């Protein structure tokens, strides 16, 4: 058999298969052929041998929450620029959010994204579709057609579904297609016109606050809905959980074995509301940056296995859009391109997770949430592999980003963990 790639002598971490050892990975015909000790002579006509000594060899990373802004806001990001950023960051699969212009709400919209992704030929690009038409929270969007076209879940991200009757209907209906309903939990009546966490800093800065209750009240409501729905095919996913109160709700919902998962972003692990003190709009994000106690609760939840995925909520914006008053600038942080290093800083360095734990939350677990057959190095699976130099230090420089946007508050940070190579379907799509 013709083999394309032999990755030798790396520390192979494949949490799904309980692998964490020094060995080799053989890739043939775009698939994982073998993981173990492989003699070069045993592999016929290997086209390329990669020496991964001192490197980590892991399943390709998966980010289930990004905004690539296409269609509609291509000046901020395109599927091509976002995909290039993704592979440079070690991501072999990403999931776009549907709050584009137009909104992703039918099969044509889904196919458009897939076509752009094929043209870009970088990372695997998936998309979620809208739960409701126009993200308006009133009528269900065509979930069935979208699911058939390949949508991996549904969300009105950017908005929470306000009406409990609509949410109940969405959860029930989605059960027919076995797809996840992902919620941006925010009760708009409590949130009001808030632009940062409601607390000491919003008070002294004179900015309208976003109360943690806005997130928690909707999450509590959704959990009550989940309890009432008899179907076994329901799956509810809480996006970008940000408060200690939400963590408590998820913890107890999981104890009751409700079908609920959640994700955490880097910024909710690394920044507090205090970062807004100088009205720097690069820290304006929704859900807002919270307090130290919330960060501690998120980290504890990660350590306890309550959190299911690490996702960036990569939200690119133009410089001119962010150069506005804090009140009027758009929400969002662009962090896809340095995400791995941020997780290392937030979770590995303080000893909250080991490497295997981190990789699990960036591969196997997120793949399960969206129901794709990825996130492992099992024999026969598509060869999505990321090679990481865990100790390489570098300085984050937004001007070197492949992403079109620069709204990244991590600019200038000294961090660890460089992506060396990103292999998508057996093809090297990125090399440092």
């Amino acid at each position, binding site marked *: 058999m013709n083999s394309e790639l032999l990755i030798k002598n790396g520390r192979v971490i494949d949490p799904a298969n309980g692998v964490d050892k020094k060995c080799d990975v053989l890739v043939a015909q775009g698939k994982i052929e073998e993981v173990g000790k492989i003699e070069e002579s045993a592999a016929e006509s290997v086209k390329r041998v990669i020496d991964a000594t001192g490197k980590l060899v892991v399943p390709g990373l998966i980010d289930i929450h990004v905004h690539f802004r296409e269609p509609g806001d291509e000046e901020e990001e395109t599927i091509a620029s976002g995909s290039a950023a993704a592979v440079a960051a070690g991501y072999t699969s990403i999931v776009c959010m549907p709050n584009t212009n137009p909104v992703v709400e039918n099969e044509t919209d889904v196919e458009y994204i897939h076509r752009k992704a094929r043209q870009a030929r970088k990372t695997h690009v998936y998309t979620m579709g809208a739960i409701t038409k126009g993200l308006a929270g009133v009528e269900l969007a065509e979930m069935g057609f979208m699911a058939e076209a390949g949508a991996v879940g549904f969300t009105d991200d950017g908005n929470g579904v306000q009406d409990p009757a609509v949410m109940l209907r969405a959860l029930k209906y989605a059960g027919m297609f076995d797809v996840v309903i992902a919620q941006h939990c925010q009760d708009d009546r409590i949130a*009001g*016109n808030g632009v940062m966490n*409601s*607390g*000491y800093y*919003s*008070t*002294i*800065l*004179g*900015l309208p*606050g976003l*109360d943690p209750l806005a997130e928690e009240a909707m999450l509590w409501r959704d959990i009550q809905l989940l309890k009432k729905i008899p179907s076994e095919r329901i799956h509810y996913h809480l996006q970008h959980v940000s408060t200690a109160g939400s963590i408590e709700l998820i913890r107890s919902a999981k104890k009751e074995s409700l079908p609920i998962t959640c994700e955490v972003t880097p910024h909710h692990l690394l920044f507090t509301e205090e970062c807004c003190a*100088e*009205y720097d709009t690069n820290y304006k994000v929704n859900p807002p940056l919270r307090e130290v106690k919330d960060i501690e609760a998120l980290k504890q939840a990660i350590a306890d296995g309550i959190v299911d995925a690490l996702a960036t909520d990569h939200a690119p914006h133009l410089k*001119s859009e962010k*150069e*506005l*008053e*804090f*009140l*009027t600038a758009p929400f969002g942080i662009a962090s896809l391109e340095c995400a791995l290093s941020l997780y290392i800083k937030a979770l590995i360095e303080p000893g909250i997770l080991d490497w295997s734990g981190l990789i699990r939350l960036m591969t196997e677990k997120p793949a399960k949430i969206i129901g794709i057959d990825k996130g492992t190095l099992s024999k026969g699976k598509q060869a999505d592999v990321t090679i990481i130099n865990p100790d390489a230090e570098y300085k984050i420089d937004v001007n070197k980003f492949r992403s079109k946007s620069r709204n990244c508050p991590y600019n200038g940070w000294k961090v660890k963990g460089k992506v060396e190579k990103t292999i998508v379907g057996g093809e090297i799509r990125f090399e440092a």
Partner: protein
Amino acid sequence: MALIRKSKQFKWNRKHLLGLRDLSTEEITYILDTAKGFEEISTRSVKKAPPLRGKVVVNLFFEDSTRTRNSFALAANRLSADIIEFTKKDSSVSKGETLLDTAKNLEAMGIDIVVIRHSAGGAPKFLSRNINASVVNAGDGFCEHPTQGLLDVYTIRKKKQTLEGLKIAIVGDVAHSRVARSDMWAMTKLGAEVIFVAPPTLIPSKVSQLPVKVSYSLDEVIEKVDVINMLRIQFERLGGNPFPSIREYSHYFGLTVERMKRAKKDILVMHPGPINRGLEIESEVADGNNSVILEQVTNGLAVRMAVLFLVNQASAQKAVKK
């Protein structure tokens, strides 16, 4: 300048006045002392002094204002500056120009000081980072209104000699009040005890971390305080329905003749204006012997002259250093 003879070693070096939270007690006192020197100019027959001659001050107002805008204009006039009036209605902001572009365009015309009022908290700070002119905050959202805070403490100091040990009630929509915040910073830095009096729905988040006490009962507070500052109910900023009716609000939080009977004889009654007669304050009280509401306006002029003078001076010194 002879006006600032009390200065000793202290040197004012702030090019902008963005808020009172960042100011030291010494800096606040220095502005008040400087204002004292300027008060005299308004009593002259020729009400003008030359320190800002040849300088251009822009009144950049994105929110309605009569008192503050005119006060700044008059202050600049008395210091011999040229004034450009820029209000939202007759500017290109309505055509979608950003705050930054508006300010940069004005700056390109060669202005020295921007006096800005804006509905977004932090807008003056944002501007100060992006333009070379001095920026003076004339009210930003519900963050700060520093010259109001200064004229309030100036008025109190004039009447009571010192703020040290005074009890001061600030009554009304504290949550949405920039005046309450600037007052709080200035008054507490000068040694007064501040009590916010409002229904819980109009008390800001995490107030326990601020240097103030909180009361929901004006009746309990009225007997104890030396100064009472009645805030205007800002119908334009109130979200939702924080109290059931004006009638009920006035009943609990209005400064009435009846309530005044239980106050200290020498209590100072203040209000940043414009007043809603019969709502937060009864006419007899607003116009009564304890009221210093109009003196606040008079003092505002001297304070704003001092502020314009000081930021310009600091700006000139910085330019020389460069």
